[in-house]
């Protein structure tokens, strides 16, 4: 989705300033070289008018004058030396210009792509540190568009607008100096023309920018519409709704057409307007120049009032300069839309980079441990298969170790995603090592929320969560999460082979370990039936597998991680009951000896839990084993017999 473009008044300068600092952080010297090279190239470009003036004044006029007296050939001989000297200097300056142009265009390619890479990586690194809350409150499309639309707007700015702007700026300044050296009066005429151009650019440009913004916004609407419709295309077919949906689309499309037409229409007027205003300036300079000669006005330059009237050669070269001057201004005015877009894009990128990262005040770490028969725990540098919490006590300066067992207790937990709306109330539950605890309840009852709190995707409002007796707020988030395995309904596999995806659970797992995990999860069978087995590439979130197969893979992924605590959130919802029945043995083996939290709306999945929590509106309303709850003939019984609806 494209987002609305808004630039707050006065923030544009700040954003550009920050962008410049950001760029010069990585490419200070390169930028300096680029600026110098652009200046040289721009000056070289302008020198042709200057050389023309020098040629006319020092070669052609004296040569012609001499020629009139002594014959043309002699006239040329008289000035040829000067001509070759001037030509030599010219060639030298041009050569320098070409060399600099070669350097800066290549450097710009390096800076542009290098800087974009840094921006992307900085954004990505930032993204990894953002709390889960950020992802829950922003659509994926919105986050994605930072990387696509906004970075692209930056690319436009850096690779085109900036060099173009620098080039024009240097040209304009150099030309201004030359013009002032030639004639102050004529320069004033040109400047008056520039003022008119500025007004035109502002008027037409702001109209164009206005519709440009509108075009982006109606583009966003069209995109949203198309996305919804195409995702429901099969339903459209089944209901023969094609004609109606075409009619609806025509409305959105017409609006976009109108805005695009206006935006480009105004944009296209700008260049001819500036160019032809340039012609008007040209005429004005000619008239004023002629008048100056005619009225014998002594020439005024910045070096002072000259004794003579301006020469014709000077006027000719001045005319050329004024033309180049306006051309450069025209070039800059063409970049307005790109600059507006880029500032808006950069503003959003900075906003993204300024997001607060997930805080972690935890100091209790998970370490490999040796445990002797007396239960004494010592830390070990190698993998021992045993884990312990390393708990430093700052006040006493001592360190204690607690064995990682998987005992999780929630005590009087209150929580709301937003302060105004509490989702969980007074939730208290104990899960002893190796127990299987199930959550049952309607959508929004708070089942997933509880698991979100255990792995600290969100932090509780009130109450306590203890893990092996330690307050989880004291545990380093990374270590806490490493000790919890989680399988979600949305499987989220990554581009790579099936083997890579299983190994995601434990990066140094051997192939044998991965295959053993796949066998445990009941995924081995279907994997080996694929033409390339474990080497099958998954693309586009595993679109070449069925949802059930993906779930089996994500179970294998958690199996290889071998965590003491498992959270299964609708982990088998897409596996049909028969397959589920077949993989049940594997699942039971996986859950053996671990503390497990299960969420499933298929009650058959959770019947053998040690305790079932029935949640309603964030409260635990019933708890007990399947048997006890059936006997109780309460809410669970009604759910079980089908009197209530889940999800």
């Amino acid at each position, binding site marked *: 989705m494209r987002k609305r473009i808004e630039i707050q008044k006065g923030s544009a300068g700040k954003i550009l300033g920050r962008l410049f600092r950001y760029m010069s952080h990585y490419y200070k010297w390169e930028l300096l070289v680029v600026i110098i090279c652009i200046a040289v190239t721009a000056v070289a470009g302008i020198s042709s008018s200057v050389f023309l003036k020098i040629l006319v004044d020092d070669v052609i006029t004296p040569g012609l004058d001499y020629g009139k007296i002594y014959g043309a050939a002699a006239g040329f001989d008289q000035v040829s030396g000067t001509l070759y000297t001037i030509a030599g200097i010219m060639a030298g300056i041009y050569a320098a210009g070409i060399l600099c142009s070669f350097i800066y265009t290549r450097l710009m390619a390096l800076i542009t792509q290098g800087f974009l890479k840094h921006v992307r990586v900085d954004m990505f690194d930032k993204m990894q540190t953002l709390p889960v809350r950020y992802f829950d409150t922003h659509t994926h499309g919105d986050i994605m568009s930072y990387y696509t639309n906004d970075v692209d707007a930056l690319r436009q700015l850096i690779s085109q607008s900036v060099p173009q702007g620098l080039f024009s700026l240097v040209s304009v300044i150099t030309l201004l100096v030359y013009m002032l050296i030639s004639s102050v009066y004529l320069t004033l005429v040109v400047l008056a023309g520039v003022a008119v151009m500025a007004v035109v650019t502002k008027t037409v440009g702001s109209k164009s920018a206005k519709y440009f913004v509108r075009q982006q916004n109606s583009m966003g609407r069209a995109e949203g519409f198309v996305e*919804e419709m195409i995702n429901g295309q099969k339903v459209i077919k089944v*209901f023969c709704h094609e004609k109606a949906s075409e009619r609806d689309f025509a409305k959105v499309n017409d609006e976009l057409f109108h805005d695009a037409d206006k935006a480009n229409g105004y944009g296209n007027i700008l260049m001819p307007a500036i160019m032809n205003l340039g012609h008007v300036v040209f005429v004005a300079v000619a008239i004023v120049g002629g008048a100056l000669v005619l009225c014998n006005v002594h020439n005024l330059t910045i070096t002072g009032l000259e004794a003579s009237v301006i020469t014709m050669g000077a006027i000719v070269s001045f005319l050329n300069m004024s033309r180049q001057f306006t051309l450069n201004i025209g070039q800059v005015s063409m970049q307005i839309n790109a600059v507006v877009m880029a500032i808006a894009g950069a503003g959003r990128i900075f906003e993204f980079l300024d997001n607060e990262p997930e805080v972690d005040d935890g100091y209790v770490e998970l370490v490999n441990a040796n445990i002797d028969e007396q239960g004494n725990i010592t830390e070990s540098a190698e993998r021992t298969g045993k884990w312990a919490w390393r708990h430093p006590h700052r006040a006493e300066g001592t360190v204690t170790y607690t064995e990682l067992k998987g005992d999780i207790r929630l005590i009087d937990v209150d929580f709301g995603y937003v302060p105004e709306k509490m989702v969980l109330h007074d939730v208290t539950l104990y899960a002893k090592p190796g127990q299987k605890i199930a959550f049952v309840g309607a959508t929004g009852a708070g089942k997933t929320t509880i698991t979100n709190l255990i792995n600290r995707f969100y932090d509780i409002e009130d109450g306590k969560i203890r893990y092996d007796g330690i307050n989880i707020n004291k545990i380093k988030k990374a270590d806490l999460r490493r000790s919890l395995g989680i399988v979600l309904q949305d499987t989220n596999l990554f581009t790579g082979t099936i083997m890579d995806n299983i190994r995601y659970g434990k990066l140094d797992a051997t192939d044998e370990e991965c295959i053993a995990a796949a066998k445990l999860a009941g995924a081995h069978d279907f994997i080996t039936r694929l033409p390339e087995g474990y080497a099958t590439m998954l693309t586009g979130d595993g679109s070449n597998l069925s949802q059930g197969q993906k779930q089996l893979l994500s179970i294998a992924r958690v199996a290889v991680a071998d965590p003491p605590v498992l959270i299964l959130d609708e982990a088998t919802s897409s596996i049909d009951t028969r397959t589920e029945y077949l993989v049940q043995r594997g699942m039971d083996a996986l859950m053996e000896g671990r503390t497990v939290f299960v969420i499933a709306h298929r009650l058959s999945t959770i019947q053998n839990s040690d305790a079932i929590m029935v949640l309603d509106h964030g409260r635990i309303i019933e708890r007990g084993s399947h048997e006890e709850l059936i006997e109780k003939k309460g809410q669970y019984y009604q759910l079980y017999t089908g009197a209530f609806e889940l999800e």
Partner: protein
Amino acid sequence: MNVIKTLTKSLREFRKETVLAPVLVSLEVVVECLIPLYMVTMLENIEADNSIENILFWGGILLLMAAVSLMFGMLAGRYAAKASAGFSRNLRTDIYSAIQGFSFSNIDKFSASSLVTRMTTDVINIQNAFMMIIRIAVRSPIMLVVSVIMSFTINWKIALIFLAIIPVLGVGLFVIFKKVDPIFTKVFKKYDAMNESIQENIKGIRVVKSYVREDYEMDKFGKTAQDVRASFQRGEMIIALNSPLMQFAIWTAITVICIYGSQLVVQSGGADLNAESLSSLIAYGAQCMSALMTLSMVMVMISIATSSSERVAEVLSEKSTLTNPENPVHEVPNGSVQFKKVSFKYSEKAERYALSDVDLDIKSGQTVGILGGTGSSKSTLVNLIPRLYDATEGEVLVGGINVRDYDLESLRDQVSVVLQKNVLFSGTIKENLRWGDPDATDEELVEACKRAQAHEFVSSFPDGYDTYIEQGGTNVSGGQKQRLCIARALLKKPKILILDDSTSAVDTKTDALIRQAFREELPDVTKFIIAQRVASVEDADVILIMDGGRIVAKGTHEELLASNRIYQEVYYSQNRMGASKQDLDDAGGDSKAFSDEGGAQE
């Protein structure tokens, strides 16, 4: 070439603007190029007679020329904007209606997100390139040609220098683009892959965080981003040779002109060439350079738009795999369904048949239950009935007539499917229901909702039937969504109703009530019910058991329970209450311990 042909069909009413814009641009350029030539004459005349009247006269003509050029330029700009915006609108319209004409297999071929990209980013690329082509791609070559011609009229000997330089440049540019094109084709693939991996990370952030793989992902992304950067940089560095090359050519020309021109002026005593003409020649030189510069920019844009054009043309020229017969049958006589030796595969290239040798004879008004594991092709089977796909072999008959003989719309109006992956659209409940029948009265809507057991919850909403459904139906629960979808399908008043796992999120009691309503109120409608739950199909007239694309058993509940192993497995797995009492007893002890610990009861 074909791509261009396919795309330009969408110009339609904007042909006039498409032609006018370049014509006007050409006129603008011609006037613009005449101006420097005219300036020479003007300067010469003013030099000869620098009276104010003379200056005003010549200046006036120049102003007039500027005004004409401005007019042409502005008109060209307007027309170019209209033509390109209109072209892109028509392209979007055409793509959209092409998609509307797609059959299910066409839809399967393109992913939704790729279709969205084609309709947005790709079309915008084409629009920009198109505007460039009708404005600047015309402007620059004309400018080049006119500038060269003008130079010839001033002094042909000197103008030859331009002619010598242009082919050198042309070859240089050609070589550069030839080298760059394959690089960029590859780069864009890498770029897409990079964005894909970002998307995966956004979607899978919970997985990344719970496996503590942030550093791993950063490391991986750093490498990907570096790879993309290196490739882009390689291409852009080659493109960067453009400017120095052009500067080299033009500046060499200008230097030579200066030397040779000055010599000519002095040696001819101003007869063959004078200072003013020399200045115009140099101005034309500069003009050639700027023309070439913009031309190379346009070439970059066009090369970007080429792949976009191909992608759009691919959609536009995609032929629907299903077409209406010549003399279609519009009326479905009854709800009987027959499959005769039907086999089906999703694409010709597929090795495996999704359905093999299906024979089926269902009488009008019967209820058919279908059970089977994932991938057993239950959905595939029912999708053949409303001809969402064509059978690869054998034939499917509805009401005794081959489905290929029906008018597609009539067939689908009378065979109503509730798809497994169903969607509601943003809009009110009423609007959504009326998809089934645009002319349905409010009473009919209520009636359908009552049958689908949706009336009760809809009435409980503050806005009732006018409740606004958010995009993707996120403000109703899964079960509610399914019931609304069923009601929508009922409004078609079909002869055959197909529910493809459409009550999976509905509780068993409601599910039973829906089936009861079907039985009692729609006795003549043939019903196909695909389900996971045995309870949903238990009372069907015939139950089909599918496995690996075949019907492995059919019969009533009692028959299958007695004879079919798969059916027994499924049945007992879902009714384990008695079967697994032992497990529960084992677990009971622990849960007691749990309550002893004093978990607060509410």
